[in-house]
């Protein structure tokens, strides 16, 4: 896709402080104790009783605005990509925009494309900024992922949020977009019908025909368009449904493990769905030297993947410390047991009278 001169002015994340270990979940449901190791995830982040997609998205956005250092009134678009909207009908983006004090003259919407929704919003924002239609766009990926109690998905479904302020590639930009490529098909690997409380998934079908096929296709498409090879990149940050798939897709594409590990945050916080690859990107931005080239490949079930090439600039160094980092949020943790977990995620059938 062609665009001009678009960069990342600021980024931010938010991860709730509560953690539940996968061993705790395995014990609750009688899974063998070795099951968590197979996923390469140790523990996952759990949203507190007073948190949701909107509250987490707000904090990530506030952090992104701090790093961007731009006048919030110049933000012309606010998008929230999520699959756990607090309201099925009523946009999360308007509440966040209002809380940031930046309504009313904005393009605003919530997007759904499973874990890829915020990434799609990045693509849209690049177009809006490139065309000059908006000066800055705020993109938020936020989820309090839910899974049916006892289902294997419960091991990784986690909560977290990431936000990016997209603007012109000017002196203030921390990094710029070199390319953006999307690959999308109708592939039913993971879905949730209107009234179902929890999603369904195709088990092994979520692998080769879904996650791997789309990420590989998107990345290959981008590399061809830009005339680049894996060795031209310093980091590879794909979507992280667990700690195994990202390493496998890296092998398939020819990226060495060392380029994946810096952005592999799923092992400590679980799968944060729409925020997953974007929190991984933030983790990399917070350590990358100026000049580094990063390949980010979010994936969403249903299905689609994006591949984007991002190059880091000098101005990133001053921005890292302006807000808490991924590392700061990961180190802030309090463990909970399965009982509290069930209470937090409102899985008890309570009668409100």
């Amino acid at each position, binding site marked *: 896709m062609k665009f001009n001169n678009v960069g990342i002015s600021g980024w931010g994340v938010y991860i709730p*402080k509560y953690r539940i270990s996968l061993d705790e979940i395995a014990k609750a449901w009688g899974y063998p104790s070795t099951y968590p190791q197979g996923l390469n995830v140790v523990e996952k982040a759990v949203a*507190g*009783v*007073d*948190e*949701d997609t*909107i*509250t987490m998205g*707000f*904090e990530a956005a506030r952090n992104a605005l701090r790093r961007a250092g731009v006048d919030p009134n110049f933000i012309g678009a606010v998008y929230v990509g999520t699959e756990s909207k*607090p*309201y099925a009908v009523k946009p999360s983006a308007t*509440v966040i925009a*209002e*809380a*940031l*004090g930046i309504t009313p003259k904005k393009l605003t919407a919530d997007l759904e494309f499973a874990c890829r929704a915020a990434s799609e919003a990045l693509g849209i924002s690049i177009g809006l900024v490139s065309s000059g239609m908006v000066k800055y766009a705020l993109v938020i990926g936020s989820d309090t992922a839910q899974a049916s109690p006892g289902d294997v998905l419960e091991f990784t479904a986690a909560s977290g949020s990431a936000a990016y302020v997209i603007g012109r590639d000017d002196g203030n930009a921390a990094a710029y977009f070199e390319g953006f490529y999307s690959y999308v098909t109708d592939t039913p690997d993971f879905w949730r019908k209107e009234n179902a409380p929890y999603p369904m998934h195709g088990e092994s079908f979520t692998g080769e025909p879904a996650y791997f096929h789309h990420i590989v296709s998107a990345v290959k498409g981008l590399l061809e368009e830009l005339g680049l090879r894996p060795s031209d990149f310093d980091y590879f940050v794909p979507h992280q449904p667990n700690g195994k798939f990202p390493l496998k897709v890296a092998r398939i594409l020819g990226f060495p493990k060392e380029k994946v590990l810096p952005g592999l945050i799923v092992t400590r916080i679980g799968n944060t769905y729409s925020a997953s690859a974007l929190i991984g990107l933030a983790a990399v931005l917070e350590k990358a030297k100026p000049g580094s080239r990063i390949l980010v490949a979010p994936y969403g079930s249903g299905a689609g993947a994006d591949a984007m090439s991002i190059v880091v600039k000098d101005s990133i160094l001053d921005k890292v*410390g302006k807000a*808490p*980092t991924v590392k*700061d*949020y990961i*180190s*802030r943790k*309090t463990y909970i047991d399965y009982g509290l977990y069930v*209470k937090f995620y409102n899985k008890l059938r309570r009668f*409100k009278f």
Partner: protein
Amino acid sequence: MNKLSPSRIWRYKSSRYRIEASKCNKCGALHYPPRIVCDKCGSRDLSKITLNEEGRVITYTLIYSVPEGFRDQAPLPLAIVELKSGTRILAPITDINPEELKIGLPVEPILRRLTDDENGGLIKYGFKFRPLIKQG
């Protein structure tokens, strides 16, 4: 008991989402909640001002006997926080273990769900305060 209407949530969203206060243009006093008449000098010439600041806990409690809709959050930590501007504000404290609550604790504002909502009702968002995130 908690019968909430859309207009009640909407009318006070700035003061509840963003700690929007009022400032007296005559004597400079800051008021939270926002006022219509300055309580220091009696002037009616007031402007809006957002107090998005850190503060310190000057007194606190842990509410065990919670009002309707707050069972999930019990014991609910509640404090009077003194902001950097000197304005004092009543706020629930979140992301904190009860033992960590103390007078003088530095805290910052964030947006959270205030209460348990009915299945079909509107969600009440508002500010809470929480201990600062350790950076570095």
